[in-house]
């Protein structure tokens, strides 16, 4: 999902393509946009915010943003700034499994490389950082940390933070500063896609602070991880460094079964609650947000589905357009399903192979034969 179109451009396209040259339906489509976007996002696209929250240690809670639609993943960050997964609370029915960073559509070239997909699908991390102005007034900035890669294979890290401005040695202002750092260079093919090589994987993982190649168990608290005596007190586990790298980029994580260090969601869906002995100060929360029309960006891959959704929502409640609504409804449903398959191509393919393998593989192991005959 590397390319996006602003909502207003998508609606102009829809007006043009549907013959509404004077854009008389623009307002109607705008009114439907939020509903269609929420419907598509929660069921098919699953694009989320990834934000760091400071835990209130007096209450062991964090306040969720007012425009939060749902929380589905919580991670913690260690003292080196590396994110580690938390196990989901399996008693929370509102938790949603989300796989956006593992989707193969992050690369505009559809190269199919895992590394390329993970880097281009890297989700920016939003956090609020505070400082004061020269007159002592507190000021807060919404800072964005992101990583990107250019066609030459250089991986960049962009960090924002408050910076004090000095003029002739006198502190005159505090502004939001953006710092860009070149992290490393990896091997790319002729299209600029990151190749799936062992060297690239090591380069990237080391750049992200992941240095164990044999699976990464970790535990303890914010300052003690693997190889630490306290590692057994917690039971996080990542099978490979690539899986850990995926977590850094924002993808869903797997943990050992039975891990019970849970968070909870307040009944009013406004707070996350952590255990009293929770050792970390910050948590990374991935959550769906309600987006304002002016900030709404539609992924190019979902543009056609979104436009059909607008037509469906715009006609569904109009008694004079029930015929059109039926057509648009069926088309919207088909396109949503197609989009879901496209976004989860590999996941769906793996499931298909598991459920309905295309060939019968005979077995010469005795007990397998028994099972086939129903004797076992």
């Amino acid at each position, binding site marked *: 999902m590397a390319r996006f179109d602003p909502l*207003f451009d998508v609606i102009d396209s829809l007006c043009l393509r549907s013959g*509404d*040259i004077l854009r*008389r339906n*623009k307002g109607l489509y*705008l009114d439907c946009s*939020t509903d269609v976007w929420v419907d598509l996002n929660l069921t098919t696209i699953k694009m989320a915010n990834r934000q760091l929250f400071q835990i209130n240690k007096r209450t062991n809670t964090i306040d969720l943003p007012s425009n939060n639609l749902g929380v589905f993943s919580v991670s913690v960050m260690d003292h080196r700034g590396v994110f580690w997964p938390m196990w989901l609370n399996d008693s929370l029915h509102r938790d949603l499994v989300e796989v956006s960073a593992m989707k193969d559509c992050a690369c505009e070239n559809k190269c199919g490389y895992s590394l390329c997909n993970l880097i281009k699908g890297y989700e920016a991390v939003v956090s609020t950082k505070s400082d004061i102005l020269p007159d002592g007034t507190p000021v807060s900035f919404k800072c964005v940390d992101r990583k990107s890669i250019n066609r030459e294979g250089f991986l960049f890290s962009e960090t924002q933070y408050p910076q004090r401005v000095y003029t002739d040695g006198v502190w005159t202002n505090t502004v939001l500063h953006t710092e860009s750092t070149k992290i490393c260079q990896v091997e790319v093919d002729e299209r600029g896609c990151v190749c799936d090589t062992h060297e690239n994987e090591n380069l990237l993982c080391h750049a992200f602070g992941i240095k164990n190649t044999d699976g990464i168990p970790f535990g303890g608290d914010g300052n003690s991880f693997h190889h630490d005596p306290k590692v057994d007190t917690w039971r996080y586990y990542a099978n490979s460094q690539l899986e850990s790298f995926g977590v850094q980029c924002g993808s869903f994580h797997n943990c050992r079964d039975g891990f019970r260090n849970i968070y909870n969601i307040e009944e009013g869906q406004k707070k996350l609650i952590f255990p009293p002995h929770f050792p970390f100060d910050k948590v990374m929360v991935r959550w769906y947000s309600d987006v*304002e*029309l002016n900030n709404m960006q539609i992924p190019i891959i979902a543009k056609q589905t979104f436009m059909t959704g607008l037509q469906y929502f715009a006609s569904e409640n109009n008694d004079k357009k029930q015929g059109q609504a039926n057509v648009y409804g069926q088309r919207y449903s088909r396109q949503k399903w197609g989009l879901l398959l496209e976004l989860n191509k590999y996941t769906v393919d793996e499931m298909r192979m598991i459920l309905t393998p295309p060939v019968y593989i005979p077995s010469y192991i005795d007990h397998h034969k028994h099972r086939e005959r129903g004797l076992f």
Partner: protein
Amino acid sequence: MILLILADVIYETYERGRPLATAKTYGREDIAMFVRMALSNKMVLNYYGTKKLNEGDEYYITCALLSVQRFELEAPDSRGMRRADMSKFDLYRLPKNAHITNAYPVGCGGSEGASISMVQPGEEFFYQKPKFNSFKFGVPKGRGVNTYHLPPCVKFLDVESTFDSDQVDVSLDVAYDISREVLGVMLNVPFFIGKNPEDTYSQPHAQLRQRLTQQQDQNPNG
């Protein structure tokens, strides 16, 4: 040809038949007014004609009439509405406000860029919530346009519409239809009466066609 020349041609045709038509007299200005009314009527008929084509709403019929005029925006009222007063101009109005094709906000160091959308009267109620603050739109009401959500730096509105003027371009086919409408229906001039005149080979018809063709040839660009 331009509208004023067409009015002159019809006036001359009318003058030739006037003693036979009626004892009352119409001046050039009266005929020009008839021409405007007939042209407006013709545009509306063409609008409905294109609606039957099943190819979406098409507005090629208004091409020749379109022009852009700049209007100053008034100060905002309590709801943030700013009005562009267009009362100094007359318009050839079309159903569903189709006569306004674009409206460009001007100001903020040049132009605001994209055209704002026009909505139908009453619809503006739904877009006055904070959710739609980024939706810049206008509502044609009376002889003007009420605009909403335009930034304060926007001072003018460039409206592209079917403004009336003596220099409006009329094509030969439309000119012929208008001539027959004015002479036959509005003025009841003999030889032109009714939708299907009894003798289109008559001298007045021939003269009218000849004069219109001459004007078109002399002013191919209007």
